[in-house]
């Protein structure tokens, strides 16, 4: 069974229907990039995957957990899903190390000593070994986002969700964050990435999903999507993105 199965997903805010019936499956070790114009519902879709948004209708099954089932312990599901936000959302009152160890220690996954050891190792892999005791406010945007990735990885998730992870970064910081993500992908992490980085999508994605108007308009291998777009909406979108 696929790692993520989404069936007929709808989401409305009052009269405003943002998601109008999405179907998607993500396989183990697959990297899926979601592209599309602003307001197309990409982020809402991603947030539905770990229940930060509750769907109006439809079914989501992740690693065998059915999110629409009231009996599902959402906290347990979330332990298996790492999420990285556009604005990092580091905990400003905790040091870098404490940001990373908070969840594993609080949830009894690891002892404090073990968690710190894991955290230092993760910081090393994202190139921030020397920042363990720094406070978040002393870090640059790119550094914050790499800490946020390390924080998500500390829970040893089976799937990682990225919500426009480089959109709030200065251009020279983007590369460091994308490098970390590329390495994750290479190590076989299942990833769903909402992004405007077409280069990243082209290079790393196993599959690209193009969303517009609350629907998936086209999906395919990066090569097909970028070199041979079928729908006029996608052709139009790529035109605009590439011309920028």
């Amino acid at each position, binding site marked *: 069974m696929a790692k993520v199965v989404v069936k007929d997903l709808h989401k409305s805010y009052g009269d405003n229907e943002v998601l109008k019936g999405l179907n998607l499956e993500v396989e183990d070790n697959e990297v899926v990039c979601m592209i599309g114009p602003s307001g197309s519902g990409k982020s809402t879709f991603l947030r539905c995957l770990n229940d*930060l948004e509750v769907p109006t209708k439809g079914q989501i099954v992740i690693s065998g957990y059915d999110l629409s089932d009231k009996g599902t312990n959402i906290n347990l599901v979330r332990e298996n899903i790492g999420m990285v936000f556009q604005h990092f*959302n580091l905990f400003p009152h905790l040091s870098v190390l404490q940001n990373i160890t908070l*969840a594993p220690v609080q949830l009894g996954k690891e002892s404090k000593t073990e968690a710190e050891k894991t955290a230092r190792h993760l910081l090393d892999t994202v190139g921030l070994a020397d920042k363990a005791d720094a406070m978040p406010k002393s870090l640059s945007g790119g550094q914050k986002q790499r800490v946020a990735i390390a924080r998500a990885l500390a829970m040893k998730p089976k799937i990682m969700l990225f919500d426009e992870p480089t959109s709030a970064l200065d251009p020279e910081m983007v590369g460091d964050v994308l490098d970390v993500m590329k390495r994750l992908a290479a190590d076989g992490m299942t990833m769903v990435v909402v992004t405007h980085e077409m280069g990243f999508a082209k290079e790393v994605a196993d599959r690209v999903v193009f969303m517009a108007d609350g629907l998936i308009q086209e999906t395919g291998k990066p090569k097909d999507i970028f070199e041979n777009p079928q729908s006029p909406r996608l052709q139009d979108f790529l035109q605009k993105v590439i011309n920028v």
Partner: protein
Amino acid sequence: MKKWQVAVVMLLAAVGSWFSLNTHAQAKTYTIATDTTFAPFEFQAKGGKYKGIDIDILKAIAKKEHINYKLKAISFGAAVQQLSANQVDGVIAGMNITAERKKTFDFSNAYYTSGVVMAVAKDSKIKKFSQLKGKTVALKTGTAGAAYAKSIQSKYGFKIKYFNDSNNMYNDVKVGNSAACFEDYPVMSYGIKNGIALKIVSKQYAAGDYGFAVKKGKNAALLKKFNAGLKAIKADGTYKKIVNKYLKSSEASLTGETASSRTFVGLFTQNLGTIGSGLWMTLELTVISIILATILGLILGVLGVMPGKIGPAISSTIIYLFRGMPLMVLAFFIYIGFPDLIGHGFKIPAFVAGMITLMLNEGAYTGAFVKGGFQAVDDGQMEAARSLGLPYWTAMRKVIMPQGIRIMIPSFINQFIITLKDTSILSVIGIVELTQTGTLIIARNFEGFKIWLMIAIIYLIIITLLTWLSNWVQRRIN
């Protein structure tokens, strides 16, 4: 145990022991309320002890009839209210026996007969009631003087201003805000003899009898003993001795104060004991109330930001109720209204009532800014915490609260200072805290300026210390 847990346990223990002490003390002992500022019938002498005709008569009768009692000095109005609410067993406070009062209270035989006189400032030209037209008259609530003045108000066309204690009433006339006051003759003449700058300009009107009062239908045995004792002390000459002692001597000989002790420093050292106990009461109330209000405020704040509708609804209702109610109304409601409602002789000690009042009022204010502080924390923080798998309450405790509380610290300091100052309002239910101490001292020495200055300085000193402490805590947390 963590530090905050230790603090909570200690607090509960303190409140608990306080309750148990209180129930012990009240066993088999009558609580008799009296006024605080009604010399020569009752007034506070040096060292905080009460003296006066009422006090001595009660003591003499109790000795003859073997009555165990505890004296409770509060304002006259509060004494009467507490008697009707069953908070005390009897009142002896120069209380006139009137038909109106007989509907609510049972009175002893009259132990003193007195009339009402009009007094004006020393340099005033007012001699007759007719000269009061359009002017303001100062009255003390619930007194025979007030009742008499009210009865002639429409005839002479004056305005009325009410006070809760005699000294403020005298002062209002002295400084010229009011043209005259009406007071019982022995009280007025005693005051003038002891330095009040007023003069009596009328004869005695509406002579009335003073009686000892109990609530209608209650404490009949106590009343019977009082009457028997009164008869006995009149027969053996004790009564006459008591009355003469107060009406024929000056205050200084009774209170033990000398003229040389009227300097600022002299007054301070003389009244150190009284002021000290008032200060202690203020501090005790402040500290306990701050702790309770903070706990309540945190609960209200957390409820206010909880997901769903029930928590926020409860929180905003409680905040709305107790923030909207004046502190004084709330204090009266809890101390007098609530036991009245429950009945069955249910009593709340004044200290506990005061504590609950402050807890609810200050807690409501605290709840409002705690809620605001939590809401000021970025939504992304909760989302990030939840996305890691942390349950709501863990996320609240470990991520939202530490950040929110940092935002709230200035509001907390502000609220602590307000709480300290608000304790002074509790003097209305008879708690003798710092402000009430000032009222009591002035009632016998009439040194308004120096004593109020002293009290103001003490408040400022504590508030300064409190601010320093808060700033230190704030620096530590950041």
